[in-house]
């Protein structure tokens, strides 16, 4: 173990590798920041630039882009309610409210601190326990994945407590939108009306840009120009109390994120949603969730970063990518002539351990970069809205176009921008819609596979103890709050009578 770490440090601490690690994390932060450009696209686009480098240097940089993007995705979520990545959608709920109260600085800082702690926890687990954990994750087949995704949907739908119906409705809309295109396991097109653009479905990046960025701008225009936020510098810097308050949320988020990150499919978006949903139930400060609670930022940001790092467990230990970005990274391994697979740790120890150590270094770099920058970024909100909004509009539309080089994307953004504005006017929650859209295809795939495993009978679910436990958890989540309310209301009159 120690030998391996020493080997890793000797690989990662060369000036060249340090420099490329820094370049990677900075590029990742910028890529995460831009709406439209995600980690997957970023790694794929910058991959050819690394061909001239040594394999380890190239992989250190590419991995840096990946986890760097997890930090960057937060910044726009907090400042202008426009998530840079799907995994930062939930952060808008409390992050943006904090920004409106002049606390954008602490929101960004806690997200950097939470991300850092989550990364270190999951990396420590990755370094010590990757092979057994990967074996464990393999036990999660289609049936278990189906159960987990249902649990995720239930947690998100019940976000708002009383507004169960509205949450369920919006998740349903998201799922419906996700049925456009060709279904998993079949070749029949649904709801495409002959359009080739719609064959791969409605891409969620465009939906996200429309609903959040454009929707928010339209909403603000109708509400009327708000005064720019002029926070005192004191409020821009995170306080010790903010950190101690957030600690339980960060630790829980890291745990949830790590578990979901090592499982195939679900990944960091579901992790951030589930962690926020759970935090909203168990946090001491749960009453303030949605109104700018710092725990509401710390929790999903820790979870998505833990999941992103945990994704390397199956990737490095088994050669099976945990998500889209790690799949591209695995492709990079092959391009550099490395055979990913269970033997990678044995055949390429210098590369694997160098890469793992570089993750620690990269995360330290990100923390050092992001903490002092948080108050600086927060100053952006001093720009009067008359200047800020055109910039948001321009970046969103150009961002949407950049994803696919297709004008169709721009029309989608406009369409979903209008939908986003209507939803805001009706006070309907947007986050469940996004999760429904992201989970839809995964849920459908797991459903088709489960049905195939059961020869058409979904009752096969009861053959998996894990799935039963997870599904019971989902039922409890829906039923328990009602039971608690019922018991309380029955007790209260009696107590009053006494």
């Amino acid at each position, binding site marked *: 173990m120690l030998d391996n770490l020493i080997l890793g440090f000797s690989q990662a601490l060369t000036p060249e590798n340090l420099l490329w690690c820094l370049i990677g994390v900075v590029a990742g932060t910028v890529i995460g920041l831009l709406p439209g450009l995600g980690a997957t696209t970023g790694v794929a686009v910058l991959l050819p630039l690394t061909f001239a480098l040594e394999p380890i240097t190239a992989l250190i940089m590419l991995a840096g882009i990946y986890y760097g993007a997890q930090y960057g995705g937060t910044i726009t979520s907090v400042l202008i309610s426009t998530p840079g990545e799907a995994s930062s959608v939930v952060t808008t709920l409390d992050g943006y409210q904090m920004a409106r109260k002049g606390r954008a600085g602490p929101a960004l800082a806690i997200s950097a601190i939470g991300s850092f702690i989550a990364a270190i926890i999951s990396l420590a687990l990755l370094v010590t326990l990757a092979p057994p954990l990967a074996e464990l994750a393999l036990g999660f087949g289609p049936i278990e994945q189906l159960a987990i995704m249902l649990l995720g949907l239930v947690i998100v739908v019940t976000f708002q407590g009383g507004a169960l119906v509205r949450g369920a409705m919006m998740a349903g809309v998201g799922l419906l939108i996700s049925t456009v295109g*060709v*279904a998993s396991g*079949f070749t*029949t097109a649904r709801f495409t009306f002959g359009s080739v653009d719609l064959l*791969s479905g409605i891409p969620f990046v465009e939906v996200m840009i429309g609903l959040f960025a454009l929707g928010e701008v339209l909403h603000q225009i109708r509400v009327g120009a708000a005064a720019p936020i002029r926070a005192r510098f004191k409020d821009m810097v995170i306080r010790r109390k903010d950190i101690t308050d957030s600690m339980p949320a960060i630790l829980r988020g890291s745990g949830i994120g790590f578990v979901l990150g090592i499982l*195939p499919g679900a990944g960091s978006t579901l992790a951030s949603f589930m962690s926020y949903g759970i935090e909203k139930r168990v946090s001491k400060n749960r009453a303030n969730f949605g109104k700018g609670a710092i725990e509401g930022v710390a929790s999903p940001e820790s979870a998505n970063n833990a999941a992103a790092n945990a994704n390397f467990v*199956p990737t490095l230990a088994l050669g099976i990518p945990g998500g889209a970005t790690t799949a591209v990274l695995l*492709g990079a391994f092959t391009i550099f002539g490395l055979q990913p697979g269970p033997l990678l740790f044995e055949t390429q120890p210098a590369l694997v351990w160098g890469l793992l150590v570089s993750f620690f270094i990269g995360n330290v770099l990100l923390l050092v970069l992001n903490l002092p920058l948080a108050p600086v970024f927060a100053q952006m909100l001093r720009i009067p809205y008359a200047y800020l909004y055109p910039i948001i509009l321009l*970046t969103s539309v150009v961002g949407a176009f*950049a994803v696919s080089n297709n004008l169709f994307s721009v029309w989608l953004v406009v369409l979903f921008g209008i939908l986003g504005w209507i939803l805001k006017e009706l006070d309907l929650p947007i986050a469940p819609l996004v999760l429904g859209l992201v989970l839809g295809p995964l849920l459908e795939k797991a459903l088709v596979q489960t049905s195939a495993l059961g020869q058409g009978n979904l009752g096969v679910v009861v053959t998996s103890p894990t799935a039963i436990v997870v599904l019971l958890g989902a039922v409890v989540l829906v039923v328990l709050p009602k039971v608690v309310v019922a018991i309380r209301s029955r007790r209260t009159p009696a107590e009053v009578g006494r």
Partner: protein
Amino acid sequence: MTSRPTTIAAAAVAALALAACSSGGGTADGPVTGNVTMVVPFSAGGGSDASGRAIASGLEGVTGLTITTENREGGSGAVGYSYFLGEEGNPNVLLAAETSLISIPLSQDVEFASTSFTPIMKLGDDYTLLVVPADSPYETCTDVIDAAADGRVVAAVSGAVSLDEVVFSLVEEDQDVEFDRVPFESGAEVIAGVLGGQVDIASLNPGEVVGQLESGDMRALCSFSEERYEYEAIADVPTAVEQGIDVAFAQFRGFIAPGGLTEEQTQFWIDAAEEFAETDAYDEYIEANLMQPNVLYGDEFAEYVAGNEADLATALGQ
């Protein structure tokens, strides 16, 4: 104080504008200029993705053009090919093709046919191995057939009309047995399903599973090739024919251009492909993926596709 955030925002806008302008491109002079997109009709990380990226970087080397790879997955490949059909006449897009070019139009109601495009280069052939988890009760492919005759054998397939689906159909027809199918969306997902014990058997390209075979996590029972492999790692895997199953089916890998190109444009890509086949990058790709380097260009490739289509149609009883 406003100057700094404005600068940051302006930089962001500039970066986005650059990203937006970096692809697409004019074809005003010369047969092919500007940036090129390599469409991969499957998700990142699979065999098609690897081949698309290898071809793209190889062609970049010989043409000097910038070629970016774009995954347009969905519908077992139908999405990517249908999108490609809409690019008719555009010499700046290519597609990393394999047998689904033939099997999709044969089995599904789609708008394209295997002849809708301009075949450029067949890189080589890829067969599949029948693999099981290390602790599987099956020792040979005959064991698997016997088990399927008596009861239920669950097979993972990586798409509704993918090569492994074709191979399983051929085996079923030859041996008069039936396998239950569970559809996955990539070779990597299938490997996870086999290792996790959710499925009993899978039929995967050697390049996809060689890591798991070498580590002993999976075993290869037979190969669906005419002869045994020469690659050391899988040289002792018997062929299906040796075990009494008369099935050998090669999947080709290559790349195609959209239909409706001018002769110069087609020739440009064929010349580039011939040059690519001479490079070390080509050899490395073939060896890393344990493929057979059977190369064909242009019209010869088109003839091969037509022959393959006829074989496949007979095999699938259509």
